[in-house]
């Protein structure tokens, strides 16, 4: 109960604030049919929605969702691989780390047009944008997780004559997995952001959630724009929940921290 009530209280406050804002804006309901122009109050959120609009949002969700899923999966593979490779050699780490930081601090929105220009507005380009924005937390957390294995445990595997592969798979990666999951949780949110923000530049073909929300923004009806935003929020939430469930299944049973 203690875990449920506080978020519900905040939710109620948000809804109340939403209503207050919607009804306090001048001209919010000045359209001929009385629908909201700027911010629809919660109960009118889906006014003006019809089957074709839902169909467009559904197609956009499929595009953005699949981009984020593939992008996050690749980020996991690339991030873990980079983290492991850097953990093997301080030289490699010092060679790669500044470039990874540079990539991380570069706003993805300035890289997206370059990517589209170079490789075209394909699904691969969408995925590349998503990977670029989301792999870093996994790579850095893997690096620190693998490096954080205690000397005693390393000694144990040395005395057992363990091969580098056995040391990696039976010691370093399991030991790093809580850190990898912490990175994955951040990356999951970033992957959805990457899939949606990158979509702004993909002007051809079926739009993703990013381009669709811009389209509805230019439209006079607010309902579809809010509905699209809500779907994007739920997409991000879905990613967060999937990662949390995976962590609960794979790491939480033994990691009491």
């Amino acid at each position, binding site marked *: 109960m203690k875990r449920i009530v506080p978020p519900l209280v905040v939710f109620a406050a948000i809804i109340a604030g939403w209503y207050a804002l919607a009804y306090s804006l001048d001209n919010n309901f000045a359209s001929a049919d009385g629908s909201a122009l700027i911010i629809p109050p919660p109960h009118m959120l889906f006014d003006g929605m019809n089957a074709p609009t839902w169909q467009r949002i559904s197609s956009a969700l499929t595009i953005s969702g699949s981009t984020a899923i593939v992008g996050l999966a690749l980020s996991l593979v690339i991030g873990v691989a980079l983290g492991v490779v850097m953990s093997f050699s301080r030289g490699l780490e010092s060679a790669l780390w500044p470039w990874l930081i540079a990539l991380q601090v570069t706003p993805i929105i300035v890289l997206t047009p370059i990517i589209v220009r170079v490789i075209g507005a394909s699904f691969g380009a969408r995925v590349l944008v998503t990977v670029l924005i989301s792999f870093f937390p996994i790579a850095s957390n893997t690096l620190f997780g693998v490096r954080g294995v205690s000397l005693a445990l390393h000694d144990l595997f040395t005395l057992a004559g363990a091969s580098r592969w056995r040391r990696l798979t039976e*010691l370093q990666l*399991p030991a790093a997995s809580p850190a990898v999951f912490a990175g994955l949780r951040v990356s999951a949110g970033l992957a959805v952001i990457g899939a949606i923000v990158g979509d702004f530049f993909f002007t051809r073909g079926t739009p993703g959630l990013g381009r669709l929300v811009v389209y509805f923004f230019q439209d006079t009806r607010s309902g579809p724009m809010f509905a699209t935003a809500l779907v994007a929020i739920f997409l991000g939430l879905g990613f967060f929940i999937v990662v949390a469930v995976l962590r609960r299944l794979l790491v939480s049973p033994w990691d009491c921290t």
Partner: protein
Amino acid sequence: MPPTESVTVPALEARGVSHRFAEREVLHDVSLTLANGEIVAVVGPSGCGKTTLLRTCAGLLAPSHGTIRRNDPKVGFVFQEPALLAWRRVGGNAALLAEDDATVEQLLRISGLAEHRHKWPYQLSGGMKMRLSLVRTLAARPQLVLLDEPFGALDQLTRYRLHDEFLRLHTQQRFTALMVTHAIDEAVYLADRVVVMSGAPGSIVAEFVVPTARPREPPMRYDAAFAALCGRIAACLGDHP
């Protein structure tokens, strides 16, 4: 044909071992021999190189000078911390280095951990974790076991209990053990010989033979001879800070 000579190779022989970390010498000319099945305890002030000595004996560290010889390449090491794999259950940790399941089962039973085999390490008490660490080491059936203050972090009652368990396992497996400890009474209770090291750079300044025969029982701790020997070792440590 030359006559065959029966030579007993010691389980561990360190000759003139010295070690430096950069400019700092931590071990100086240490020589030590352990016969098969013998338990030797090393006591000395903090920072005198006891752990470095163990690591060189294990082959984890190459000494700057001197030689280390073991009659069996397989070495068991019990660390100051239990060093358990958090993602493996008790049974999985016990079997990590083992060559056969029967030994693991037997050790789990003897150590009272069999009923906890499905627990995760974080669900164990400090004493149980250390016991599991010992079981994991012995499950590999090493001839030589090196122990680095294995009972140092435990309360006295648990320590005493583990001492007896350790001796029971020793009686059963007859391994050779070199143990580093801060506790003089622990050294005297468990070991056949107690070696005293001086402060840094560590070198051996005295050796005491513990005359009490095995098997040893807890009443030994309250023996006058036991107290006298502990007193002599403490005095020796005081003379070599």
